[in-house]
């Protein structure tokens, strides 16, 4: 047996992506598509695929697989596939169309994404993402997605998230909604055609693995409580990210890690769980009742100026009465060349430091000002209204303050998870027949995601990548039929039933939400914007204690055979507890700062993130070895053949 390192984990054999062909980067995808086996159209109907999740990744995959003639069974936990959390994306979607002739290209998008990810993503995957990006826009336009247009009738683009080219396509502040409705309508068309069977209000609670292959799932009907078995030749998870681990995040109330975590427990490795993204411009917490946080588009930083009072004694004052010389526009001061437009992680951390120093404003002292007074003076109120009117209205709706008159208050919030199930170039996990798409996988963003790239990845995976790679696997099918009485099926169903029975019979003293809130506080404190050896060690201990208490002390009322949201949440929080521990262990073991992962011990003299490429130029793929056993780390070495590794600088 290998030694336990730091008392927390073991190291196993390295892991490799064996699917990406070598050779010139711009030929790899073409080669793979050519080499992947084909499935005769007449056989597709006999091949069944389960797709869990109908967001951009899952919705697009269902529609495309259905059109190709496969027999698709789709699942989502909301009452309609149109409500997946992709709907909430505001800013836009990147694509290397170079419509502006400003020097953009597939290679530049690839380069920016690798660099933005702080050199912790695979080159082959990222290049493919950039390569298919242009087809996404074509597809969406043909479906009727109403992107913003210029007076010429041609598509408009803007620059987003600090990149120097304009490659972001958008539909006002509702890009995710419009893209998702496009995918949803394509999906509904297949529902009508009979190729996709849609199961809404169904939650996946377990994966079924038979003879080493993913062959099905166990779900709970969220209306009747019925525990159902669904079997197929392959399973796709497109279940989104796990930012909800933190309780307070910009994710939807139901976002969860249950599908991916259950698969992890059945053998799928989890990649880079500690890579989370914190968004600098969210509306701050207003009180203990807070249930989620609302993102205010990053575009606000183009014209708003961020500041705090120089003197902590001024925190309670009306900001309008604080004279110019008593304000600290700290981003402009520390980063003179990028100013308020520094990348998300830097802006977030800087806000935290100001608040830690006692200069934070608003309830609890966790907020900084985002001030539009100068912009209004310079461009006039009307222009500011045209640019940001809907955001200002939303802010006023939520806070009751009018941002035209008084500065907004903002604070960072957890927003996105780069980590996810480990997949190879084919998007296949370490369980044969289990594919993972969209935010649920770890594939393309390394340690940090650029703005407008998640929508691109979700749709790239769903429309173009997965349908081409899954056929290589399905070509060997249909696989032998699995009877309902197969031991793996019975065992999976029983596990689900036992968990439900446990929650309903525990009759403890604390609600699920109260545990979830406490878990979130631990993570935010110790595994949020800044992480330290001591803090993470403490977090692991606290999470373990909380988890033990959870199983003994949670109170879930009502029964199984009814709509029971406490019961739904109980299962999700149980999985969050285990994932949270792995996240802290991953953060502990990665003793470097990179992208969204900032280890206080690893910084330059002037306080910037310091990568350690010698020791950590790898993706961490974690293997489950039991709920109370140390996980096993498998390293996937990252090699950069086309982009040179550099240290970021924004000064």
């Amino acid at each position: 047996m290998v030694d336990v390192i730091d008392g927390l984990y073991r190291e196993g054999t390295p892991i490799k992506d064996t699917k990406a062909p070598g050779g010139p980067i711009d030929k790899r995808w073409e080669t793979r598509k050519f080499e992947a086996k084909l499935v005769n159209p007449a056989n597709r109907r006999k091949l069944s695929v389960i797709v869990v999740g109908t967001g951009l990744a899952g919705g697009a995959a269902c529609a495309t697989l259905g059109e190709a003639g496969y027999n698709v069974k789709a699942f989502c936990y909301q009452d309609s596939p149109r409500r997946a959390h992709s709907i909430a994306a505001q800013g836009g979607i990147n694509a290397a169309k170079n419509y502006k002739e400003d020097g953009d290209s597939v290679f530049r998008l690839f380069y920016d994404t690798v660099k933005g990810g702080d050199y912790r993503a695979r080159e082959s995957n990222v290049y493919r993402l950039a390569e298919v990006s242009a087809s996404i826009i074509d597809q969406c336009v043909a479906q009727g997605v109403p992107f913003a247009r210029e007076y010429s009738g041609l598509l408009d683009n803007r620059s987003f998230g600090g990149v120097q080219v304009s490659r972001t396509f958008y539909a006002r502040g509702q890009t995710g909604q419009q893209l998702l409705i496009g995918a949803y309508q394509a999906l509904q068309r297949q529902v009508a055609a009979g190729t996709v069977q849609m199961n809404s209000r169904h939650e996946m609670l377990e994966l079924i693995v038979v003879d080493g292959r993913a062959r099905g799932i166990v779900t709970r009907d969220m209306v009747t409580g019925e525990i159902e078995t669904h079997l197929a030749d392959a399973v796709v998870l497109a279940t989104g990210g796990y930012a909800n681990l933190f309780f307070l995040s910009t994710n939807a109330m139901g976002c969860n890690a249950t599908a991916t975590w259950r698969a992890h427990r059945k053998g799928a490795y989890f990649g880079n769980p500690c890579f989370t993204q914190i968004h600098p411009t969210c509306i701050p917490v207003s009180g203990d009742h807070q249930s989620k946080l609302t993102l205010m588009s990053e575009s606000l930083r183009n014209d708003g100026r961020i500041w705090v009072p120089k003197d902590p004694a001024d925190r309670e004052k009306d900001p309008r009465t604080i004279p110019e010389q008593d304000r600290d526009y700290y981003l402009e001061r520390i980063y003179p060349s990028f100013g308020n437009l520094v990348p998300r992680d830097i802006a977030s951390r800087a806000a935290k430091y100001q608040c830690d120093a006692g200069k934070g404003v608003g309830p609890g002292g966790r907020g900084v000002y985002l001030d539009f007074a100068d912009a209004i003076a310079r461009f006039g109120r009307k222009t500011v209204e045209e640019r940001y009117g809907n955001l200002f209205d939303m802010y006023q709706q939520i806070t009751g303050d009018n941002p035209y008159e008084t500065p907004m208050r903002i604070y960072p919030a957890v927003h996105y998870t780069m980590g996810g199930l480990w997949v190879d170039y084919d998007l296949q996990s370490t369980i044969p027949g289990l594919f993972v798409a969209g935010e649920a996988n770890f594939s393309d963003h390394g340690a940090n995601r650029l703005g407008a790239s998640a929508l691109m990845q979700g749709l790239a995976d769903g429309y173009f990548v997965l349908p081409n790679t899954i056929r290589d696997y399905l070509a060997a099918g249909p696989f032998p039929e699995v009877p309902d009485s197969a031991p793996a099926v019975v065992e999976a169903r029983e596990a689900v039933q036992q968990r439900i029975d446990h929650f309903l019979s525990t009759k403890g003293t604390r609600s699920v939400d109260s545990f979830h809130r406490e878990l979130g506080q631990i993570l935010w404190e110790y595994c949020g914007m800044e992480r330290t050896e001591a803090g993470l060690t403490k977090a692991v201990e606290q999470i373990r204690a909380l988890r033990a208490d959870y199983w003994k002390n949670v109170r879930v009322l009502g029964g199984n055979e009814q709509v029971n949201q406490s019961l739904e949440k109980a299962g999700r929080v149980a999985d969050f507890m285990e994932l949270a521990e792995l996240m802290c262990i991953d953060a502990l073991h990665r003793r470097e700062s990179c992208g969204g992962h900032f280890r206080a011990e690893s910084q330059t003299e002037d306080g910037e993130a310091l990568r350690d490429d010698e020791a950590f130029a790898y993706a961490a793929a974690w293997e489950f070895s039991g709920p109370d056993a140390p996980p096993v780390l498998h390293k996937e070495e990252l090699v950069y053949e086309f982009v040179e590794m550099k240290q970021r600088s924004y000064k």
Partner: protein
Amino acid sequence: MKINLKIWRQAGPNATGKLVTYRLDDVSPDMSFLEMLDVLNEQLIAKGEEPVEFDSDCREGICGMCGLVINGEPHGPRVTTTCQLHMRSFKDCDTITIEPLRADPFPVLRDLVVDRSPLDRIIAAGGFISVSTGAAPEAHATPVPKKNADRAFDTAACIGCGACVAACPNAAAMLFIGAKVTHLGELPQGQPERAARIVKMLNQHDAEGFGGCTNVGACADACPKSIPFDVISQLNKDLRTSLVRGL
């Protein structure tokens, strides 16, 4: 703030429901309406009473999952979704009645949760443009005048919440369908199927048991996304074209 609540409780689809009274003593005006219900639920759980079931997901006014009838109005007193309504819209000691989005085609599943799947089936009947993945031409091949693109966007903003149906005395889903046929009908890509789309969607609408439109206008007043009432005129106009073509 102190708030009195009268909330519809119904154990299941076939159970009889009733309004039950609750009282909250410590409501902050900064709470969202749904956070106020979260607080109530925490109190109920602490007392050993089953919490009130209600739907929500994004809590940002965009997914369309939430939707309660508040003092008789779907989504309450303001032009926004239930999740974006805040307690500062109410007064200390107010009594608030909360009911599900009621309509015959939307049966109650439990408490405030209803089944809105008929809206998905209406979209499946024809609310799309038939273009399979990979079959799309270059995006700039067909310019779309900004005016049409903007109107397409305005109507594509529908979140499928069903408030229009609950507001309508006839339980018609015409605003919902009007929004979709206008969205797709404004775009060149939507033309080939335009005439057939509307007939298929309306047939499904009727089959689901929604009622007919009698121009009341309550739908547009209730719509959190301000879908304009005139999409229904557009729908009628397009329908006449379809009928002339014998579809």
